[in-house]
C-alpha cells in the first residue's frame, strides 16, 4: 500500500534530479559519497566558506556554540527584513513616525518590524557571546591575532548599527536615547565644546570649537537631534554601516579559513 504511493513519488524525484535543469544547477550527485561531499563544498558559492573536512572537536556545538554562525545568520535576517521595511519607511521628521504606525496598524500579520528589532537585540547578545567563546578558548592567539581585531571592529559596527537604527522610529524612546548617547560627543577632548582643552583651540579671540562645528555636531548634523540627524542615521544604518560590516565580515570569514580554520589545540 505504502509502496504504491511512494514508488511514483520516488520516480518523479528521480525524474526531476536527472533533468537538465537540476543537473545544470547541481553539478554532482547527492553528497553521500566522499567525492560528492568534497564537490558540494567546492562547487557551491555559499558552502565554499567551509572547508571540505574539519577537525571533529572544532565543529562540535559545545566548542563553537555556533555563535559566529548565528550572528551571521541574524545579519542576513536583518538585511532582509530591513530591506522590506525600507519599502514603507520615509526618513523624514514629518513621515517617519506615521510610517511606523502604518506598518503596525495597516499591514496584516506584519511582524517585519518585530523581527528586525528583536533580531537586532539578539545580534548584539550573540556577538558578545561569540567573543566570550573566542576568548575562553584562547582562539585570538597566534595566528589569529589580526582576525580578533577585525572581530572587535565588527562588534563596534554591530553596536553602531543598532544605535543608528534606534533613532529611526522617531518616537520619544528613539530621540532621547540618541540624545543621551550623542551628548557624550560634546565632551570629546579637543573636539567637543565641553571637552577638555577644546577651549584652548582659538584663533585670536575666536574659539575654533563651538556647538555648530564640534564632534557632536558632526554626529548629529545639527545642534540637536533633528531632521539632519534622522537622514544621517538612516543612510548610515541602511547603507554605510552594513556595507562596511559586510566587507569586514568577508575579511573575517576569509581569515578564519586562512588562519587554519576553526581553532584547536596545536
Amino acid at each position, binding site marked *: 500500500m505504502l509502496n504504491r504511493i511512494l514508488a511514483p513519488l520516488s520516480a518523479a524525484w528521480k525524474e526531476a534530479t536527472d533533468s537538465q535543469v537540476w543537473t545544470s544547477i547541481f553539478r554532482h550527485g547527492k553528497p553521500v559519497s566522499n567525492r560528492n561531499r568534497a564537490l558540494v563544498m567546492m562547487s557551491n558559492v555559499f558552502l565554499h566558506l567551509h572547508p571540505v573536512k574539519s577537525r571533529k572537536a572544532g565543529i562540535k556545538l559545545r566548542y563553537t*556554540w555556533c555563535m559566529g554562525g548565528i550572528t551571521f545568520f541574524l545579519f542576513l535576517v536583518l538585511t532582509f527584513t530591513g530591506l522590506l521595511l525600507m519599502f514603507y519607511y520615509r526618513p523624514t521628521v514629518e513621515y517617519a513616525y506615521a510610517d511606523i504606525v502604518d506598518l503596525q496598524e495597516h499591514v496584516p500579520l506584519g511582524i517585519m518590524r518585530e523581527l528586525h528589532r*528583536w533580531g537586532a537585540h539578539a545580534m548584539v547578545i550573540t556577538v558578545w557571546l561569540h567573543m566570550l567563546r573566542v576568548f575562553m*578558548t584562547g582562539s585570538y592567539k597566534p595566528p589569529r591575532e589580526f582576525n580578533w581585531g577585525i572581530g572587535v571592529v565588527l562588534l*563596534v559596527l554591530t553596536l553602531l548599527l543598532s544605535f543608528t537604527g*534606534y533613532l529611526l522610529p522617531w518616537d520619544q524612546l528613539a530621540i532621547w536615547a540618541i540624545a543621551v*548617547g550623542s551628548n557624550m560627543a560634546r565632551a570629546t*577632548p579637543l573636539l567637543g565644546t565641553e571637552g577638555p582643552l577644546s577651549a584652548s583651540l582659538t584663533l585670536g579671540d575666536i574659539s575654533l570649537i563651538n556647538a555648530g562645528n564640534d564632534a557632536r555636531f558632526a554626529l548629529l548634523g545639527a545642534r540637536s537631534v533633528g531632521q539632519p540627524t534622522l537622514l544621517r542615521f538612516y543612510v548610515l544604518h541602511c547603507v554605510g554601516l552594513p556595507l562596511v560590516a559586510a566587507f569586514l565580515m568577508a575579511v573575517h570569514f576569509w581569515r578564519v579559513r586562512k588562519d587554519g580554520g576553526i581553532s584547536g589545540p596545536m
Partner: protein
Amino acid sequence: MIDLFKDLVNWASGPTVLFTIATLGLLAAFRFTQVWSKTSAKVFFAVLAVFYTASMWDPDFFLIVAKPDNIPITGVIFLVFFFTWFAMHQGIQNDRRSAGEGEVLEKQESEKVWVWPDLVYTEMLAMVILSIVLLVWSILLAAPLEQPANPADSPNPSKAPWYFLGLQEMLVYFDPWLAGVVFPTLIIVGLMAIPYIDTNPKGNGYFTFRERKAEIVIFLFGFLILWCLLVVSGTFLRGPNWNFFGPYEYWDVHRVEPLLNVNVSDFFWVKLLGRPLPTGGFFAALMREWLGILMVGAYLFVLPVVMSWPRDKFPTGLKWLSCHHYFEKMGATRYYLGVSLFLMMMSLPIKMYLRWAFNLKYIVAFPEIFFNI
C-alpha cells in the same frame, strides 16, 4: 515575611552591595573552582528562575522587566550566566584531564570529519531553531513604539540603548569625556590589543582555566562585572534622575537624593588645612589640585614602574603588587601597555569605592576647562 525578603533584595541590589557581592562571588568562584559543576549550575539556574518568576507578581518588578525593550536584558542575564558557566565548566574538566594522564577533549577528537554533513547540518538546525525563536518572539511581543518624538519633553529617566547603559552608569563616577569618549576608546583599543599583550602560548584552541588564570580572571571581571552587571543594573535599577531603585521599588520621580560629593582639593585645603581653596589664575588652580594630580600621576605613571620591581624590593604585605615575572616574560613594551590598560580598567571600581566610601567627586578638578578626573 515577603516584605522582609523584598527589603533584603532591594538592599542587596544597591550599587555598593551588588557590586561588592558580585565581585567577591566571582573571585570566590575562581578560587574554589569546584563550584563550576553541573550540580551547582542546576541549583543556581533553578534559584534564578524561581526568583525571576516569583518576582513577576510584584508590580514594580514586572513593570520594569516586562518592558519590551528590556526583554533582551533578561536574555543577557540567563545567557551570559549559562555560557560563562559552560566555558568554565569545560575548562575545568579539561584541566582535570591534563592534570591526570589524559589530554584535553579538543585534542582527543582531532581526527578530520566531513563538513557535509557534520557541520552543515548543525548550521541548518541552528538556522531553523533561531528562525522559530525569532518568529515566536515577534508574534508574541510587539516592538515598542512610544509617543511621537517631542524635543521639548524629555522623559525622566532618559536612557541610552541598553547595550550602552554600562557607559551611562559610568557617568555617575566619571565626567562624560572619560565615561563617554576615553573609556569606550580604551575598551576598543584594549580588546584589540589583547592578542598582542598576551604572550602565554598555552590554552590556544581549547577550554582551560588553570593554564590561563590571569587572562581569564581579568577578562571575565571586565566583561561580567564592569560591562554586563552595569548594563543590567543600568536598565533595571536606575530610575528617574538616574537614582537607584531596588527591583521591588516604585520609580518615584520626586525622590531626592542628597548630593554631598567633595573633591580631593576640598579634602586637602578645606578639611585638612582649614583654608579656602586657592583662587585666581592658572597657577592657583594647579596649586589647588596638586594632590589630585600627584595621585593620578602616581597611579598611571609611577605604579606600573613600581609593579615591575622584583618581589624582594617590596615590604611584606605588599609583595602581591610585584608583577616582575610578567615584566620578565612580556618585555617592557607589552608589560607597560598591558599594565596601563589594566590600571585604566581598574580605575572604574577604584573611583566607585572612593565615591561610596568618601563621597569623592573628583580627584583632579579643573571645571574651567572641563578637565575633571
